[in-house]
């Protein structure tokens, strides 16, 4: 807000010349780090900050509740909330990051962090942790590390998510098959899918097509002991692994076990409209923290009771990865003490955690997580989400090093090539070759 007043004053007093000079100076100053940022230290938080997050109307209400709690505890600070839906959020963040005008507390995600590192957009929060302004002692180190980029702590994780397979328990029971078991490998999973498909009505598939999902491949690679990316930000797996993965899913499609590519491509993105909620598939990949949304939507559509399982295991066991959402302070923030105080409150305060109810992934503080798991107020579906996260985090899953532009470079390319493969435009071998070549070029640039 201070910047706004300053700009208006210049325009009023000095006319265009002063304004142009001031604008040019400001444009030059921001990238050089000449910002009014102050270190938190022992300064009592005061003034105004803006908190910017992504979310649906429910999450917005929960976040507003946390903001109200914070303002009651810190009357000298006024927090302006600003929210957008997921897609809009990243469009706006990209522009504001380029302009170095991000709000003082900006929600980020471990997969996107590296993108904002090269421009020195985000502040290294290590100093605030060392000074005690932000307490991370209750957070597992592996979770905290998801907010680190090249040794700099750029995000304090507050919600941890993972990928899972949601399945229709009623369909499975009706088919007379056992419910899927944690620890199955791909061969066991595939055999189960084929038996399930044989009992399903025409037009219903045992599983949706998941071979197009780069997150599913990430998990598959980790079950074989590979990382998606190495420390240099290049591909960390051999082409043969990707060929095997796409080969498995191509077989599922050819055998009629997985939904065809055309059906997959026309599926809406939201959980409420997903094929599992509409009863068109029995198994569907969903983010683990959206399981309760699927359960709720499936109750309305009356397609059956939903269960959740982890992806099949491999020679190296579990391949799951933890994806965290967290809070960052931009380097251009002019009220660091208040921003640090808000982040500390959001990630550590028991009342705040209770109000937010792990709406964007499991709460990362271990004690707060246990409170929610043991609380009677937590619904069974959310308890399953939290317990599954606790199990995964207890398995010491490896940290994924997402390179800059991960979504644009890797995820989109993966989807493009896999759609060509599953629509029959390209063979698995040719698709794998073209993907590896293009990904190497894109990641290098």
């Amino acid at each position: 807000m201070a910047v706004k007043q300053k700009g208006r004053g210049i325009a009023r007093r000095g006319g265009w010349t002063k304004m142009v000079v001031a604008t040019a100076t400001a444009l030059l100053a921001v990238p050089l780090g000449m910002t009014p940022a102050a270190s938190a230290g022992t300064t009592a938080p005061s003034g105004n900050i803006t908190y910017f997050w992504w979310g649906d109307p429910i999450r917005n209400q929960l976040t507003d509740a946390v903001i109200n709690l914070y303002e009651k505890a810190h009357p000298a600070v006024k927090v302006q909330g600003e929210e957008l839906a997921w897609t809009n959020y990243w469009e706006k963040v990209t522009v504001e990051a380029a302009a170095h005008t991000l709000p003082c507390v900006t929600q980020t995600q471990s997969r996107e962090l590296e993108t904002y590192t090269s421009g020195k957009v985000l502040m290294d929060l290590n100093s605030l942790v060392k000074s005690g302004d932000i307490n991370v002692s209750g957070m597992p180190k592996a979770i905290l590390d998801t907010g680190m980029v090249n040794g700099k702590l750029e995000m304090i994780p507050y919600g941890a998510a993972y990928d899972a397979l949601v399945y229709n328990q009623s369909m499975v029971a009706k088919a007379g098959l056992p419910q899927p078991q944690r620890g199955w490998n791909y061969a066991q999973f595939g055999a189960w899918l084929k038996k399930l498909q044989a009992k399903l009505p025409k037009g219903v598939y045992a599983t949706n097509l998941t071979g197009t999902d780069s997150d599913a491949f990430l998990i598959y690679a980790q079950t074989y002991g590979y990382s998606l990316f190495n420390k240099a930000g290049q591909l960390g797996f051999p082409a043969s692994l990707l060929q095997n993965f796409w080969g498995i899913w191509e077989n599922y499609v050819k055998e009629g076990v997985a939904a065809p590519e055309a059906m997959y491509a026309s599926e809406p993105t939201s959980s409420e409209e997903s094929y599992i909620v509409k009863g068109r598939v029995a198994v569907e990949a969903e983010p683990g923290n959206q399981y309760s949304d699927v359960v709720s939507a499936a109750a309305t559509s009356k397609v059956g009771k939903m269960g959740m399982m982890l992806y099949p295991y491999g020679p190296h066991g579990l391949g799951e990865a933890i994806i965290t959402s967290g809070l960052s302070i931009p380097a251009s923030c002019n009220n660091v003490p208040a921003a640090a105080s808000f982040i500390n409150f959001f990630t550590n305060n028991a009342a705040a955690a209770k109000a937010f109810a792990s709406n964007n992934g499991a709460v990362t503080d271990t004690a707060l997580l246990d409170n929610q798991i043991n609380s009677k107020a937590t619904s069974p579906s959310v308890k399953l989400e939290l317990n599954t996260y606790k199990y995964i985090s207890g398995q010491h899953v490896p940290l994924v090093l997402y390179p800059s532009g991960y979504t644009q470079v890797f995820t989109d390319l993966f989807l493009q090539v896999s759609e060509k493969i599953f629509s029959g435009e390209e063979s698995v071998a040719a698709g794998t070759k073209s993907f590896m070549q293009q990904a190497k070029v894109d990641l290098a640039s």
Partner: protein
Amino acid sequence: MSYTSPVSAPRLFFLFRLKPVRLRAFQALLRHIVVICLLVVILYPIAWLFVASLHTGESAALMGVGFNFNHLSLANYGSGLTGSLDFSRLFLNSLLVAVLEVIGALLSCTMAAYAFARLRFPLKGPLFAVLIGALLIPGQVLIVPQFILFYHLGVVGTYIPLVLPHYLGIDAFFIFLEVQFIRTLPRELDDAARIDGCGHVTFLLRVVVPLSLPALATVAMFMFINSWNDLLGPLLYLSNPHLYTVPLGLSEFIDNTGQSSYGGLYAMSFLSLVPVAGFFLAGQRFLVQGIATTGLK
């Protein structure tokens, strides 16, 4: 290669035996059937949207491509217009922004177009080429520099970044459209007005503007529709939900990472079509005339 018609030839001959009056009636009937069929195809998505908007909760998302007339209610309209997003205010915001942008575009484009079409000044040709060249610049290239400029002017979070550029002649296409129209006006009018003592301002206001109404109406309509449907501008520059415009409000109904509200989305989307359709119907005659007379297709 032989071909056997599935319809016996004598049956088709009845058309030739019809009297001219009956033949014309038959042709009109056929024409109407075809038009009605096309109308059904065109109106189907709108009808579907309306019926879906009458479903509450997740049943709106689950309606599929057909129609489901069970458990219809107007609840989505009520909750959308008075709920947390308060679309009644969003409609007023959109209307305000659209009207201000239309006024800005009409003022700046008309003056610029008059200058290019009627005045003689140094570098007129190259400047017009620059104007046409501006049409080739992708809007995405300008997003970040414009944002930085408006941020440091202290006007982010207001309607000024959305409205102000239209008062500065940013709409090169509309200037081009008006230049084309004004060039078609007879030069004799300039001479007659000058003999009567008209300066450029009087000639512009009393002669060019009244004669350019079709072109101005075309600019106004395109500008209104562009403004009404604009998502990116409000997304970047508005952060206070009280200032949101309709497209920004609609986009808030859907979130891939949480629960979406399809019923509300459908209801407010249906309502958002009404002003555009009304504006188009009211000015349809001018729009067609404007496009025809400026040679645009």
